[in-house]
C-alpha cells in the first residue's frame, strides 16, 4: 500500500509534464487546427536551454526560467510562421507533414549543436527560496524537491492559463477562435495575433516542462519524440482543444503508466496510452470528457 502511493506520486510527477506539454498542443489544435508534431521539440529545446543557462552560463534558477520561457516562446513564434501562417487555408494533414519536417530539422540541429550524448541539469534546490524549505517526505511518499517542483509549477501555470482563458479579452478571443475562426474575425478578433500568442504560450509551457524534467531525466536530441506522442495521447483522451480535459487526462496517463509499470510489466508502460488513443478515436472521438455532436 505504501508503495502504491509512491507509484501514484511518481505518476503525478510525469503526468504533470504531460499536462504542461499537452495543454499547449491542445490549444494549438483546438484554436488553430494545427496538428503539431514538433511540439516535443519545444520540450527538448527547453531542456537544452535550461542546461546551457544554469550549467554553462551559471544563471540563477529564476533567471534561467525566464531565459527558457523567452527562448521557447521565440521558437513558438517561428513555428507559427512555418506551420500555421502559410498553411491555414489547407487540410490539417498538411500541418502534420510540415511539423514532422520541422521536428526532424530541429532534432538534427540539436544533434549538431549539443551532440548525441544525454545530458542532465544539476538543479541545486537549496538555492531556491521557497522550494528548499519544502519537506521531502509526505507520509509514506518520498519526493525530492526537484520532483515536487514539477506538479507545483504545473498547477500554477495551468491555473494562470485557465484564468486568462476565462476572464481576459485575450482568453475570450482565443475561445472565440476555437469556436469559429471566421465569426471571431468578424467580431474583431485579430486572428493572426491570436495564432502567434497561442503558439508562443504552447511552446513556452512545453519548454518549461522540458527544463524541469531535465533535472530528473536525461535530455537528448530525440527526447521529444516520445513526449510529443504522449502529449498527443493526452490531447485525444482529453478531447481536442479541451484544456481541462488535457489536464485531467495528462495526470491520468502519468498515473496509469506508473501503475502499469509497477504492477503489470515495465515493457507495457508506453504501449497502454497508444492503445487507448486508437480506442478513444474509434468510439469517442470527442474525447473522454467531451459531448457527442452530429450534424446534418
Amino acid at each position: 500500500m505504501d508503495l502504491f502511493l509512491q507509484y501514484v506520486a511518481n505518476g503525478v510527477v510525469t503526468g504533470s509534464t504531460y499536462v504542461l506539454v499537452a495543454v499547449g498542443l491542445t490549444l494549438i489544435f483546438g484554436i488553430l487546427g494545427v496538428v503539431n508534431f514538433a511540439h516535443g521539440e519545444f520540450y527538448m529545446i527547453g531542456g537544452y536551454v535550461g542546461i546551457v543557462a544554469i550549467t554553462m552560463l551559471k544563471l540563477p534558477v529564476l533567471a534561467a526560467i525566464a531565459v527558457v520561457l523567452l527562448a521557447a516562446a521565440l521558437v513558438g513564434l517561428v513555428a507559427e510562421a512555418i506551420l500555421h501562417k502559410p498553411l491555414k487555408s489547407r487540410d490539417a494533414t498538411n500541418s502534420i507533414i510540415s511539423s514532422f519536417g520541422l521536428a526532424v530539422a530541429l532534432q538534427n540541429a540539436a544533434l549538431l549543436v549539443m551532440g548525441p550524448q544525454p545530458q542532465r541539469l544539476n538543479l541545486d534546490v537549496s538555492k531556491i527560496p521557497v522550494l528548499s524549505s519544502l519537506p521531502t517526505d509526505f507520509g509514506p511518499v518520498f519526493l525530492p524537491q526537484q520532483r515536487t517542483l514539477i506538479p507545483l509549477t504545473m498547477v500554477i501555470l495551468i491555473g494562470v492559463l485557465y484564468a486568462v482563458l476565462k476572464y481576459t479579452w485575450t482568453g475570450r478571443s482565443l475561445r472565440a477562435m476555437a469556436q469559429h475562426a471566421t465569426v471571431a474575425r468578424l467580431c474583431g478578433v485579430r486572428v493572426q495575433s491570436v495564432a502567434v500568442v497561442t503558439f508562443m504560450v504552447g511552446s513556452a509551457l512545453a519548454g518549461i516542462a522540458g527544463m524541469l524534467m531535465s533535472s530528473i531525466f536525461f535530455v537528448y536530441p530525440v527526447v521529444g519524440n516520445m513526449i510529443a506522442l504522449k502529449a498527443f495521447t493526452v490531447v485525444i483522451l482529453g478531447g481536442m482543444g479541451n484544456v481541462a480535459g488535457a489536464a485531467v487526462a495528462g495526470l491520468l496517463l502519468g498515473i496509469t503508466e506508473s501503475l502499469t509499470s509497477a504492477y503489470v510489466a515495465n515493457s507495457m508502460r508506453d504501449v497502454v496510452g497508444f492503445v487507448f488513443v486508437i480506442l478513444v478515436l474509434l468510439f469517442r472521438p470527442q474525447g473522454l470528457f467531451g459531448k457527442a455532436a452530429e450534424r446534418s
Partner: protein
Amino acid sequence: MKPYLIGLAVALVLAVAPFVLGGYETNVLMMMLFFVILAVGLDLVAGYCGQFSFATGAFYGLGAYTAAIMSRDLGSPIWLNLPAGAVVAGLFGLLLGIPALRLKGHFLAIVTIAFQTIVYLVISQWTSFTGGQVGVSLPNPAPLTAFGVTLVQLGSLRSYYWLTLAVAVICLLLAWRLAHSRLGSEWIAIRDDETLAAAVGIDTTRGKLTAFIASAALAGVAGVLTAHAMRGVTPDDFTIWISATVVAMMVLGGRGTFIGPILGAVFLVLMPEVLGRLAEYKMLIYGSLLVLAITLMPEGVIGRLRRRAAR
C-alpha cells in the same frame, strides 16, 4: 505501352549497373530500391486513396521481422519469407484499415501514428520473441534451388542486388496495374469525395481496405528484402522517422502521380551520397525540404508539372 518501355529501359540500366559500380554504390542502389517500393506503396494508400498513413515504417518492420523470425525459428529461405512478409504486413494493413472506415483526415493520421508507435514499442520490448533492442540476426540467404540444382547464388552482393531489382520490378508492375485498374480509379474517387463515391455505388469499405492492404504488403516485401540484405533487424530501423522519410519522398515527388514518389525516393536516397561531407546535415536537409515542399508545392514536383501540362 510507353510507360512499360521506359520502365524496362530503367530496369536494364539498373541491372548492368553493378558491373560498372563498386560494392558501396551497389549497396546504395539496393537501398534506393527498398525505398522506391516503400514510397510507391505509400502512394497507393495516401496518394491514390487519400488515406494518410504514417505507418509505413511499421509495415516495413513487420515484413522484416517476419523474415528474421521465420529464418531464425523455421530456417525458411527468402523465397518463402517474401510472400510471408507480404501476407503478415498485409494483414496488419487490413487491421489499420478498419479505423480508416470511420475516421478521416488528421484523426486517421493520428491513429496511424499511434499504430506505428505501438508496433515499434512491441518489437523493441517483446525481448523473448523479437530480441528486444538487440534484434535478430540472419544467416546469409540460402541459394535458390530447384530439384537439388542451385539456380541462383544469393550470398554475393551482386546476386542479391539482382534479386532485389527483380522483386522491385514485380512490385512496381503490380502497383502500376492496381493504380490503373478499376480499383485504382475507385481509390481516386474515394480520395476526391468519399460520399459521392458511395453515392455512385462504389464500395468504399472495399476500396479503403484494399488500398491499406496493398500498401502494407508492398512495405512488407521491402522489409523482407532489407532484413536479408542487412543480415539482421533491430527496432530502430523501423521507427516513425522511417515513415516520415517515406512521406517526404512521396510528398516531394507528388502524391498520387506514381512516378513522383519513385523520383522522390531516388532523390532522397542519393542526395546524401552526393553531398559528401555535408551528409552530416542529411536529416536537417530532409526536414527542411519537407517543410518547404508542403508550403510551396503541396502537389509535389510531378504534380506541379502535370498541372502545368494540363493547362
